[in-house]
């Protein structure tokens, strides 16, 4: 039993110290800084109204507060109160910030489910609605995904973001989860474990139930995307060219036939 140091002059000193007390841990520090001070900075910048309009885009007005919420540095209640205080005087119509509050509510929803059914966190809540059985999915994450060496430049860039920063835009999480489960037929549990290793906000309940939502074991249908969608929201920052993303470059009808040959259309 040993009391650990708490006072450091610089971030570099702190990182060196963590290397000493966690020599087994892989990788490098994220550029995302921990702590209450940084959480407060981010709280001051939240823009709930524009969040609703732009959140699906790579450069949308997202808060990046999730690592702080997951670690309890700030609570959902505090973030909501901050959003209301900052916005309601200016925009008295609650509907202007509905998407922002709703996104916080998704986390609350998953936590409530996990509280009542902790046994669902790592098991299929429902059957896959993909025309495949659970036994058709591999429990092992392939090396090309772990090493960002898949056949898709876009997917590789998303994986590199995950590994290097420990943070992913919510839309990218859905793309990656969909790619892993539906394009590569890997069990969602393997993907969820991989995310939890890297994501600074990796939370068993939110992460795993979101994977199940994509997989269709906790939703009415599987979530899929195509290159056109990735290009619309992320094309400004990632390589979404057809020649480097052949696997994703198809219409939803074509993808449905290819990925779920045993069932009809699953895309709205």
């Amino acid at each position, binding site marked *: *039993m040993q*009391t*650990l140091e*708490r*006072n*450091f002059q610089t*971030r570099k000193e702190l*990182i060196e*110290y*963590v*290397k000493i*007390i*966690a020599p*087994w*841990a*892989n*990788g*490098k*520090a*994220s550029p*995302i*800084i*921990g*702590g*209450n*001070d940084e959480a407060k900075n981010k709280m001051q910048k939240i823009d709930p109204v524009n969040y609703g309009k732009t959140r699906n885009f790579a450069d949308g007005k997202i808060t990046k507060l999730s690592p702080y919420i997951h*670690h*309890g*540095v*700030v*609570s*959902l*209640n*505090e973030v909501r*109160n901050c959003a*209301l205080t900052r916005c309601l005087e200016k925009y008295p119509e*609650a509907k202007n910030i509905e998407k922002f509050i*709703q996104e*916080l*509510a*998704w986390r*609350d*929803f998953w936590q*409530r*489910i*996990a*509280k009542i059914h*902790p046994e669902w*966190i*790592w098991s299929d809540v429902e059957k896959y609605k993909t025309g495949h059985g659970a036994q058709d999915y591999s429990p092992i994450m392939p090396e090309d995904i772990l090493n960002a060496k898949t056949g898709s430049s876009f997917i590789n860039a998303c994986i590199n973001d995950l590994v290097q*920063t*420990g943070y992913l835009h919510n839309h990218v999480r859905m793309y990656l989860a969909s790619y892993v489960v539906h394009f590569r037929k890997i069990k969602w549990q393997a993907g969820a474990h991989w995310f*939890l*290793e*890297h994501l*600074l906000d990796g*939370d*068993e*309940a939110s992460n795993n139930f979101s994977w199940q939502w994509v997989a269709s074991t*906790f939703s009415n249908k599987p979530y899929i995307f195509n290159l056109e969608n990735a290009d619309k929201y992320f094309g400004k920052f990632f390589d979404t060219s057809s020649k480097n993303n052949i696997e994703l470059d198809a219409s939803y009808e074509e993808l449905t036939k290819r990925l779920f040959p045993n069932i009809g259309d699953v895309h709205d």
Partner: protein
Amino acid sequence: MTKRIIWLHDKALSQNHPVFDNMNEGAKAIYIWDEEFFKKRSYSFKRLVFIYETLCQLQIEIIKGDTLEVLKSFKPEKIIIPFTTDTQINNLAEQLSEVFLVEIVEEKPFVNIGSGYEFNRFFKYWNKAKNTAFLINANIESK
């Protein structure tokens, strides 16, 4: 002997958590840097740095060791733990409750929908939650 120990885990790293209300009654707050816990989770280095940076801004003692052994060594009358849905932390809390008096303290709720409801789809939950989701503190009076 310390009578009350607040065991702060990495899902509740805030001095504002209601668990700290116990500090007025002379409780000691600790975080345990448990190598085996982290290894079981395969936490990457970046996650550990984020946690450590956050810990350094809290008024708590950071102790390296096995979670159960460290907590037992204080021989506390009571261990106070912030609520979490994390399965591994809850397993540890359950083991502690076999030996010590354990109190679980919940964060202030996000919405006020009462108990007894079970929702399997988000929008069923949202139809109930939205009544208080847009209100400061979900219109719940503080104790």
